[in-house]
């Protein structure tokens, strides 16, 4: 339903404008509605959801657009977060302003992306997956161990007391007062994250419709044919890694400023897998789908956290199953069920859905070859 209306929006300019305005208002008031109706913990979850949307959109470029399976994506998030932590904390006594760090994080993560991309250009599918997974682990292990002989990352202890995000002398850590209106810290972070998410969405949409975006899709669909058509597959693939990584770097920097503490355990393999799940579950290569995936996978476990106990209480009058185990069981089940009923993702692009439907009928079982 949603997808259909969205498609009709593309053609009708006026309703598009109305829809944009409606979404804009919705996003603008969301923190206040959520904060007062559900409590600040949900607002914090919303903030994390925005961070994960940025990550998912970045990974979507690599996996969704260019079709390169990257299982170590969280490494770029870590690069961004650690750069922020090192440049704005008492650890080195540096306090570089945020508008330098975040772009620097994007650049550095982009370079890391290219470094990862370069040796893996020849690899495909599952081999690429395991190498990128290894890369992610390598980055994490270095961060965990670079406290000796020279203390760079402070090892497993992590870096604490990181400066909160601070722009033009206004810190987001304390309630802001703008024109007599107080905006609590969590709300301020929300707007900052939202602004950057929108920027990333914008960049993603423009990339998708560009020559580069079409080249990515061409590589995803058939690399040899793409090459034959004159696409410089090497550069285009590297560009996918670089662009995707830079989004992760931005999100990482924001995470460090938001949390005030980074340690290597935040960047483990499971996080990479979760971001990948967001992309695939939402609908690979389809920006609204990926955003939906990011929201779903951040909100769902929290929803189960809040409901696993009370629902049992209501149904059976007592807690039968350990709510925490039940929460994870339901989460696992949700992943399986969604994929079984919507194998192309919750909200796949219409083109892909059509392809999938046609393709599947003719060549049974060809997939997996």
């Amino acid at each position: 339903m949603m997808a259909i209306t969205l498609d009709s929006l593309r053609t009708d300019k006026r309703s598009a404008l109305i829809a944009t305005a409606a979404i804009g208002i919705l996003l603008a008031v969301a923190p206040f509605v959520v904060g007062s109706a559900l409590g600040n913990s949900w607002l914090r979850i919303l903030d994390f959801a925005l961070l994960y949307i940025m990550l998912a959109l970045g990974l979507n470029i690599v996996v969704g657009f260019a079709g390169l399976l990257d299982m170590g994506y969280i490494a770029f998030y870590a690069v961004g977060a650690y750069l922020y932590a090192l440049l704005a904390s008492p650890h080195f006594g540096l306090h570089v302003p945020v508008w330098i760090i975040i772009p620097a994080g994007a650049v550095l993560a982009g370079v890391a992306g290219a470094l990862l991309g370069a040796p893996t250009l020849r690899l495909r599918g599952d081999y690429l997956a395991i190498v990128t997974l290894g890369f992610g682990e390598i980055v994490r292990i270095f961060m965990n161990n670079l406290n000796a002989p020279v203390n760079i990352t402070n090892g497993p202890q992590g870096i604490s007391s990181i400066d909160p995000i601070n722009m033009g002398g206004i810190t987001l850590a304390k309630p802001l007062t703008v024109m007599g209106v107080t905006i609590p810290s969590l709300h301020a972070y929300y707007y900052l994250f939202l602004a950057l998410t929108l920027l990333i969405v914008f960049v993603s949409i423009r990339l998708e419709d560009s020559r580069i975006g079409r080249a990515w899709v061409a590589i995803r669909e058939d690399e040899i044919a793409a090459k034959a058509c004159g696409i410089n597959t090497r550069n285009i693939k590297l560009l996918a890694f670089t662009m995707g990584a830079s989004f992760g770097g931005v999100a990482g920097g924001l995470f460090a400023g938001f949390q005030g503490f980074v340690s290597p355990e935040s960047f483990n393999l499971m996080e990479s897998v979760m971001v990948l799940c967001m992309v695939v579950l939402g609908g690979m290569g389809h920006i609204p789908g990926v955003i939906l995936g990011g929201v779903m996978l951040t909100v769902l476990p929290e929803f189960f956290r809040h409901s696993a106990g009370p629902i049992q209480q209501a149904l059976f009058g007592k807690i039968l199953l350990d709510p925490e185990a039940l929460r994870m069981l339901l989460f696992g089940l949700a992943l399986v069920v969604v994929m079984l009923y919507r194998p192309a993702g919750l909200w796949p692009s219409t083109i892909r859905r059509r392809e999938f439907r046609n393709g599947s009928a003719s060549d049974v079982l060809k997939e997996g070859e």
Partner: protein
Amino acid sequence: MDIFIQQIINGLVLGSIYALVALGYTMVYGIMGLINFAHGEVVMIGAMVALFVIKALAGLPVFVTLPLALAAAAGVCMAVGFTIERVAYRPLRRAPKLAPLITAIGVSIILQNLAMLIWGRNYHAFPPILPTSDHEIFGATITSLQIVIIVIAALMMAGLTLLVQRTRLGRAMRATSENPPIAQLMGVNINQIISATFVIGSALAAVAGLMVSANYSIAHYYMGFMLGLKAFTAAVLGGIGNLAGAMLGGILLGIIESLGAGYIGDLTGGFLGSHYQDIFAFFVLIGVLIFRPSGLIGERIAERA
């Protein structure tokens, strides 16, 4: 010198364990081209079931409990493997390639938390299944169980290779792997073959689970994750889909880790130490894959999208 030999033996034992688990990955991958990410959890289920059978039968002689434990573990694992394939993979055979990856992750989470509910959150001590006798080889020690593990890993690889190359079932498996629709036309019931593959892979997992837990005398509901990851790395290193490759990759990985942890610290003057143990494995993996993109003895797959 005895230290060096000891390190090689350490690596060999560790590698055989990786190989045992890696065989299961590679078996499924070889037939279906699918990474069964839940395999590590099946290994864990095998270890847990075996542990509880052994505990329940405490007091009986080992030659009674051990086969029973193994049978129970294999039975449960085969049922679990069969179910996973039916529920989480078969409906997605025509789906985009990443869809089964997500269901596999979902299944892993489910299995882990089910195991936590059933067997509790504690670490369990695994009772010794063989008398602890140490053997000396050139000043290095190895336990009987470790010798058994190395032998079993080798036997399993050989047995599976025979199965795939020499039997009717094996021929059907190869046909399914080559081209499912054509295999079907030739009268192969590919659904049955794929189920059989999963069942065999899961039985292997049960053996691996028992061996791993017995060797380290520990079982825990979370043990499958790291083990699965390492074994998967080993399978890819050797060339995923190739049974001998899984064995080679496993042993190579074990030896690299062992020698890396043992010597890199002294070689680099303390700059790199055993905390980079896991990194050596990945560096070697990346190095190998750069020069041989389909693993050490993996078949060269024709380049296609």
